[in-house]
């Protein structure tokens, strides 16, 4: 992280370079927010303010965009992110049962983070592996044809890592 005039900057030099590259292109805001989220796992408040300044876009407009799109997050997800598919194929093949089991094991509800910050659970729409339904991803790694019994083992694989 770079420091300017004593105040610590949130955006990394890489992100700033990215913004520089996109600055002249119309409609760049969503691409920049993707880049920010890629770095932090969510869009931190300070980062949003810095993006506003760099692009010359009002903060209100930036929050308008962030809150419209499901993909952008405003709070920090767990260190391990579990995403259970709730697309139609997965729903019909027991996606809800996976979520229920997951909530039971971790003791937290959907879209929340466990107290130790280890795990967060979310429901996502079709990740395009419907042939393997029901499907979940853990930190992006896809697990197909999952049943509730495997759930605990999958979570344990990642615990404390």
């Amino acid at each position, binding site marked *: 992280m770079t420091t300017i005039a004593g105040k610590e900057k949130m955006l990394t030099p890489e992100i700033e370079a990215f913004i520089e590259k996109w600055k002249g292109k119309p409609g760049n805001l*969503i691409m920049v927010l993707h880049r920010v989220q890629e770095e932090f796992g969510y869009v931190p408040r300070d980062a949003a303010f810095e993006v506003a300044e760099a692009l010359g876009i009002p903060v209100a407009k930036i929050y308008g965009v962030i809150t419209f799109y499901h*993909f952008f997050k405003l709070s920090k997800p767990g260190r391990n992110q579990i995403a259970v598919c709730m697309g*139609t194929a997965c729903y019909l093949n027991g996606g809800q049962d996976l979520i229920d089991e997951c909530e039971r094991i971790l003791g937290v509800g959907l879209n929340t983070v466990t107290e130790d910050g280890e795990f967060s659970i979310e429901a996502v*729409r079709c990740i395009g592996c419907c*042939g393997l339904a029901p499907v979940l991803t853990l930190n992006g790694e896809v697990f197909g044809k999952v049943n509730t019994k495997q759930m605990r083992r999958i979570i344990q694989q990642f615990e404390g890592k």
Partner: protein
Amino acid sequence: MAKKTREELRNLREVKKTGIAQRNSSGESIRIIVGTGTCGIAAGAMNTLDAFQDELESHGINGEITQTGCMGLCFSEPTVEVAVPGMPNTIYGNVDGKAAHRIVKEHIINKVAVGDYAFEKPAADIITDETDDTTKKQKRIVLRNCGVINPESIDEYIARDGYAALEKVIFEMTADEVIEELSNAGLRGRGGAGFPTSLKWKFTKNVESDQKFIVCNADEGDPGAYMDRSTCEGDPHSVLEAMTIAGKTVGANQGYIYIRAEYPLAIDRLNNAIDQAREYGLLGKKILGSDFSFDIELRLGAGAFVCGEETALLASIEGKRGMPIPRPPFPAVKGLWGKPTVINNVETWANIPMIIHKGSAWFSSIGTETTKGTKVFALTGKINNSGLIEVPMGTTLREIIYDIGGGIKGGKKFKAAQTGGPSGGVITEEFLDIPIDYESLQSIGSMMGSGGMIVMDEDDCMVDVTKFYLEFSVDESCGKCAPCRIGGRTCYNILDKISKGQGSLEDLDQLKVLAQAMRKASLCGLGQTAPNPIMSTINYFEEEYLAHINNKKCPAGKCKDLLSYTIVEDLCVGCTACARVCPVNCISGEVKEVHAIDQSQCIKCGQCFDKCKFDAILKG
């Protein structure tokens, strides 16, 4: 690699073609082709790839291992095609490390196919169109290269007549001739609405403007569908070529592909393809040495279903909240940044190079009276052979489900197929034999949709499925217009009540009234079509709604609030299997004594029911 002129492109194509022909006829090389689309990778295709590498090395065999896109056989991923001299190319399914070991030892060294993993038909019958087998139900136009070429190699695309259509359009055809050709072909938009593609192009071409845009809709919002993802992953150049053709035809110099951020592999493959095309001078300034310039950039979606709607999509490319606006004006006249914009769906695009290359007469000979060509479906749900299929328009649902799909999982009874996702409706048993095209599906209250086809069996409850779709639509409503925002929520609440056994007949009537109102008064297609699942399921499965309302029963045994599990004392032998499997420990009883379920604790997961070997648990 330098930029190419037309002559150089043609030479390259010939060289690559002869190279492939030689390789096939000399019969010397051994090739192993691993399907590494998203679903393949999810099932472990990368490990399979490594396993083959190790096996070949340890046996000292000289063979080529390459990757390809989705072969469409998603139920048996990882899938692998093996080509060995003197044997027909064979496709293997469920290939893990053990299978790789056997394939190398038995198939490659001993020249005997490994029956346990092999598909019955030779590879040519399954994934390519190079046979004249009329018993074959599938026909691959859009997916012609998917599962065949290496999607990261522009040379392989070129060798299969890639960019030949663009050449023709730039050097041999006028804009009007291109539009005429699409019109004669009868190509209609595959994104759902089925609007004639030639008309859109004509509108845009005829508008005077200093700037025009070409947009590819790769937002694929229907949950449970992945045709467009597979096409972008398996054959990215076909989309680029088509967009460039459109640019030349209507007079645009810039194209955008709007793609879901949830598709990282497709994004990588498209970016890679764009780089290659630029290197070859097939994108960028002065394409193929002509004075036509065109370039393409990607723009990422961010998880909003409504952004699949074209006006919302354009707003999103502009970096704004993806809210739809009323049409007209249509994007063809006033689109991106107010400029005339051609917007088509991925599958529509992928058809176009073939139409130009092979001619409209060929294309229009396939399909039905009103709907030409083929349709790609993502066949999923309770079906044995879940996967990506492409069939000529006019194929019946029966052929799709039973001949291609291999019937219903577990020998259960077919109940309905849903097309069009949350905007569509159900097709029931009585319509299994109607030939599929835009008009016929609409006439029975469903729709072609973008290609999701979800098969449901006797265990699926229509109230529950409809509630699922409404929950989706409510979640995805942008909130701009009241009929969709409030109407959708109210419909969902009623469905929720009914699924819990708390609904009344008045609720059912109100549901029908609301559905009509939403259809008529909503601003965009999302709200207008969100009630379709309601109308369609009430139409064909009203008795199921009535069972929930009048008898407080869910005939399919899906709605948990109307369900209870009890132990039949006479049949229980006290084996304790149910108590051990219960995740909330609500089953009690000593070994060899009758067990009991504590109804207040039961979460109705059904695991005890599945576990019991003595039919001693009653579901009802």
